[in-house]
């Protein structure tokens, strides 16, 4: 069986949560193997074996200051060693760009934002925010960027045999990472792509202060918090909360749009959600055309009452 490589991203030396799903995806196509880069890359072999890695290709070294190029070098070296049929990478900017560069370096199709993989190596993608579903095949070493929370199951545990890679000779020009600033508040809630429930606020919230109601709603439901571009542009919240054409595309079980009119660019980022709830004072806004349950009313009356009702249910 041919190997299928997974580019493993780590946080404090441990594989990130999405890794298990990426191994499950690799197992559909062949024998999963890991590619890992960093100071303690080899030390992750045991954990990666448990997640399903038959082999662990590890490039040890401090490459933290280089943007993307060490991951590309390690993947290319692992492709040379393993002759895989495909490579799975994550959906964040770092992983996507490493995958895109790898496709050029080794010769292969690059498949972006994949939500499904079949045994015969067809990938499923969405176009125009879910208005179309596309299946595609790929030539060469197919590089697949997998959207988080799209593949179920896990790969069976395997040996995790360590194979060391030496990428110290890589001379590809790179951008230097001078510093990183992460936002602590965002990490306490589930991420937009990972969440079962997403609540999004729009211009109807009226101000940054009043947008706090959305935080309360999100935390009551254990939901991820999103926003329309209008709310982001108005400064109510951070840009990385934007759901829509130029923000994150989400397809949770439940999407609650509060004070959002539903411009076509917003719909493109959430219309494939399973159940859509909309709350808006204007009965004529387009969000109601796609809502399973719509409430025409004052969000500052409806949302607090809803929060109380949910709390009563949870406590009862």
């Amino acid at each position, binding site marked *: 069986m041919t190997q299928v490589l997974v580019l493993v991203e780590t946080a404090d030396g441990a594989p990130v949560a999405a890794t298990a799903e990426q191994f499950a995806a690799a197992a559909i196509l062949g024998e999963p193997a890991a590619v890992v880069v960093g100071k303690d890359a080899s030390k992750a072999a045991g954990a990666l074996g448990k997640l399903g890695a038959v082999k662990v290709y590890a490039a040890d070294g401090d490459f933290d200051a280089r943007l993307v190029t060490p991951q590309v070098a390690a993947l290319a070296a692992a492709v040379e060693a393993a002759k895989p049929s495909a490579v799975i990478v994550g959906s964040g*900017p770092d992983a996507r760009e490493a995958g895109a560069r790898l496709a050029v370096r080794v010769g292969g199709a690059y498949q972006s934002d994949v939500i499904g993989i079949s045994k015969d190596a067809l990938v499923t993608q969405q176009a125009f925010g879910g208005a179309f579903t596309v299946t595609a095949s790929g030539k060469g070493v197919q590089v697949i960027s997998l959207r988080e929370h799209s593949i179920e199951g896990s790969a069976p545990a395997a040996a995790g045999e360590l194979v060391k890679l030496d990428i110290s000779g890589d001379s590809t020009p790179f951008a230097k990472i001078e510093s990183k600033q992460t936002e602590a508040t965002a990490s306490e809630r589930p991420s937009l792509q990972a969440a079962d429930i997403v609540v999004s606020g729009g211009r109807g919230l009226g101000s940054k202060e009043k947008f706090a109601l959305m935080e309360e709603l999100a935390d009551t439901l254990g939901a991820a918090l999103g926003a329309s571009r209008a709310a982001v542009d108005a400064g109510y919240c951070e840009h990385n909360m934007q759901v829509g054409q130029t923000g994150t595309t989400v397809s949770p079980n439940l999407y609650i749009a509060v004070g959002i009119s539903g411009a076509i660019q917003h719909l493109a980022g959430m219309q494939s959600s399973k159940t859509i709830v909309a709350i808006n004072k204007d009965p004529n806004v387009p969000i109601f055309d796609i809502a399973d349950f719509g409430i025409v009313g004052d969000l500052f009356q409806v949302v607090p009452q809803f929060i109380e009702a949910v709390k009563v249910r949870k406590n009862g």
Partner: protein
Amino acid sequence: MCPADNLQFSRTSNYIAMLQSITFEVRINGGMVGMMKIAVLVKQVPDTWSDRKIDPGTKRVDRSKDQVIDEINEKAVEVALQVKEAQDAEVVVVTMGPSSAQDGLRKMLAMGADSGIHIVDDAFGGSDAMQTSAALAAALKDKGFDLVVAGNESTDGRTAAVPAMLAERLGLAQLTFLRTLEVKNGVATGERLLPNGNATVSAALPALVSVTEQIAEARYPNFKGILAAKKKPIESIALSGLGIDASQAGGANSWSVVETVTPKPPREGGTIIKDDGTAGQQLADYLAKANLI
């Protein structure tokens, strides 16, 4: 955060405007030596305000109506023009697309770009990101650009892969997904947007930059700019001019092959209620009944 960023940017541009007379004198004294050369990648896409479709026959994006320059590309041009205003630079807008894409290039020239490159050949129809980046690389490689600026992601294909692929092909350091950019003393620095924050990244030129939509608000072309744009040169390059073999070009030879395209069935209309004072409670009941909360 983003409105603050925009403010910073406009403050910078006011400052730059004050300094322009000084820069101008330096230009006269220093001639054209050391002038920075900037390429900006732009693309026509179906208007995001329109009902966008994939043609079931060709399995390609239907580009028959409402083609506009992607908004993110206008912002990329804006950034290049701000660099040009801060220091002597030539801004070249580059596109790959059918003959109608020239209208888009003219609009960017009207904004203030100096010239255009139009990669145009029927043989390129249906190119994927791999092929598009190869064509762009072939067009740019011997032209001595110090900086290549792109949008982070187009609104039609949304692969967000072409900038990284182009950096790989041209051997350029990539500074991508930037929400701020400063180019000073031959070094580009900016904040890269991450899912949970951002990273400050830098690289000496030559380099490739991709920008996110917070980078700047694009200026509108004025009447003078629109008139001037008509006289600015656009170089057309066909397949043969790029040294790309016909057996590598176009949808028939793409690396990624679309097999099926299925439109999503229209959503059925749901229940819409008017709040009678109990809507919040009714919503909780509805969601509980559906096991969603």
